């Protein structure tokens, strides 16, 4: 098992492979699901938990508790899924997970890094479970409620501002998807991060060019994210999103007053080229026929790695 923040590149490439395999396995056993998100972001999650994030040990049970009711003043039993990312302490980073539809990938990454029991996936999307399909802040690894997309970056900005006021050294890392940049709120947030020089915020975005309705360039093109972010005054690094070393490198840059955006260019069919046949409809894999299902099963059987 890789040790967070020090894992070797080869180990993390293997972790990414296993993240894809676990998600693929889950999707096959459940007759569909969010597979392309794992294909595009497996290395991002491997790099985050294995190299980038400075986190303490999980504070949550390996087997997630059942849903304890929504947060309220009358509910002292509510638990934070953020506890899977370790304790809040001045020197530790925070991980804010934005595209909640990637929940299955996040859960799988937590399993790979020993923060969640393997059989927790059996609770995925089961009634009464916290291991929800899209999830909220009781779901493992989820610190803020972000299923309504683009809200995480603003919350991360407030957390980063609060941490700076308290003199804390830890950073606030936000994992986003490129589709979220269609929301106006993201740009409101970027201008505020730049205005307040919140260089303790770092965003890593899965730039896979996909969204629910299909290819972003067909649904609503966002143009050059790098150019737009730079025009706002942010610090931008574009990397190959399947290259662990490249993904991890920007985290080593000395803060310079600008919020950091790592744009990770990814392939939404990475590892499962069969999915290219259904492009651009990659958001959620549903089998149109038994024949299609059989072809995916064959692809999974040939996928490699331990069972």
């Amino acid at each position: 098992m890789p040790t967070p923040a020090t894992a070797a590149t080869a180990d993390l490439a293997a972790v990414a492979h296993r993240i894809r395999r676990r998600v693929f396995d889950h999707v096959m056993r459940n007759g569909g699901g969010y597979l392309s998100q794992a294909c595009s972001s497996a290395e991002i999650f491997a790099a985050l938990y294995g190299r980038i994030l400075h986190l303490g040990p999980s504070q949550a049970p390996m087997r997630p508790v059942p849903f304890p009711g929504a947060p309220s003043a009358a509910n002292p039993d509510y638990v934070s899924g953020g506890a899977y990312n370790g304790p809040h302490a001045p020197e530790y980073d925070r991980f804010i997970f934005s595209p909640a539809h990637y929940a299955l990938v996040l859960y799988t990454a937590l399993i790979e890094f020993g923060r969640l029991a393997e059989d927790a996936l059996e609770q995925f999307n089961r009634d009464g479970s916290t291991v929800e399909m899209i999830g909220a802040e009781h779901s493992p690894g989820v610190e803020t409620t972000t299923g309504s997309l683009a809200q995480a970056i603003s919350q991360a900005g407030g957390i980063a501002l609060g941490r700076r006021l308290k003199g804390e050294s830890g950073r606030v890392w936000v994992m986003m998807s490129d589709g979220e940049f269609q929301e106006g709120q993201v740009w409101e947030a970027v201008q505020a991060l730049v205005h307040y020089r919140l260089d303790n915020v770092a965003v890593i975005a899965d730039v896979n060019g996909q969204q629910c309705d299909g290819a972003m360039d067909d649904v609503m093109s966002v143009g050059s994210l790098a150019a737009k972010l730079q025009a706002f005054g942010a610090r931008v690094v574009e990397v190959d999103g399947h290259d662990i070393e490249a993904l991890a490198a920007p985290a080593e840059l000395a803060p310079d007053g600008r919020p950091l955006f790592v744009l990770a260019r990814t392939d939404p069919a990475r590892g499962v080229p069969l999915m290219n046949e259904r492009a651009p409809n990659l958001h959620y894999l549903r089998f149109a026929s038994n024949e299609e299902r059989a072809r995916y099963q064959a692809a999974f059987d040939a996928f490699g790695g331990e069972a």
Partner: protein
Amino acid sequence: MERVQRPHVENFIRWAADKPKVVVVSADLTNSCEVGKWRDTYPDRFFSLGMAEQNLMGFAAGLAREGFEPFVHTFAVFIYRRPYDQLAMSIAYPNLPVRLMAFLPGITTPGGVTHQAIEDVAIMRATPNMTVLETGDATEVESVLDVAHRVDGPVYVRFLRGVVPRLFPQSEPMALGRARVLHEGDDVVVLTAGITTEEAMRAVPALADAGVHATHLHVSTHKPFDDPTVLAALRRARHGVVTLENHTIVGGLGSAVAEVMAENAIGKPLLRLGLRDTYAHGASQAYLMRAYGLDALALVRGVEQLIGRSTGLTEDDLAQVRIESVHSLAKAEAL
């Protein structure tokens, strides 16, 4: 009756002096929300987020998560309309202690439909975890800070600015979930909140002089709405109940009273006065209160409808009523 010039300005500065976790989050309406001097007094605790309310809600949420107590200051419409999803998901769902100081409630502004918060109580009441308060005078503008500060969760406050009447003595601060009993009588019950209370304080004594005796309750907590004083008064009303609110009659004070009456099988007529499922437009407060039936005369006519006869009261009779600040008549055990 005393009228106080901008009571929030100095009071909020004094109040925050020994509360270092209190921060202000503003949206380009800083002086309009009477926190310009606060910003100059505590520059390290003041954060301008510009005209970007969706992001503002997230920043406030994040600050609250880090142990700060953000007081958002902007116009009400820019709190509950434009960034509602952010308010609900980033602040209300996690039950974060963000204080939403909502200026220009109802038709208190000539700014017109875009600036008039006429359905905010309905929407905030329907939002889980949200406590909903409304200030009706200078004493409440001053004391609502303590009330909000003690709530474990988000609080929405309909806030008054500028020249504000002092209807209640400073020795009787706002109390969460407790209505003020301003007049007692067995014929009808009148419930008001915010700026409509001063109107009722004109109408109710005139009605008494005309032989119609009302119990008048001033409500400052819209949610939770479980005050035993209200329930007891509703049970006592002989002819029925009238609510007068600076809000649409759908979902606000009148609806809250209807819910209490129905759930407690109080089978009496209820007349809800307020904006009748309509937007207003830009004009003076006095004009709009007359035009949309939110003033003392509208209340008198409503009571007449309820009791089935005319009182003979005219606009001139109401203009002559002299309003003094009143101690709540609620018995100590009820408070």
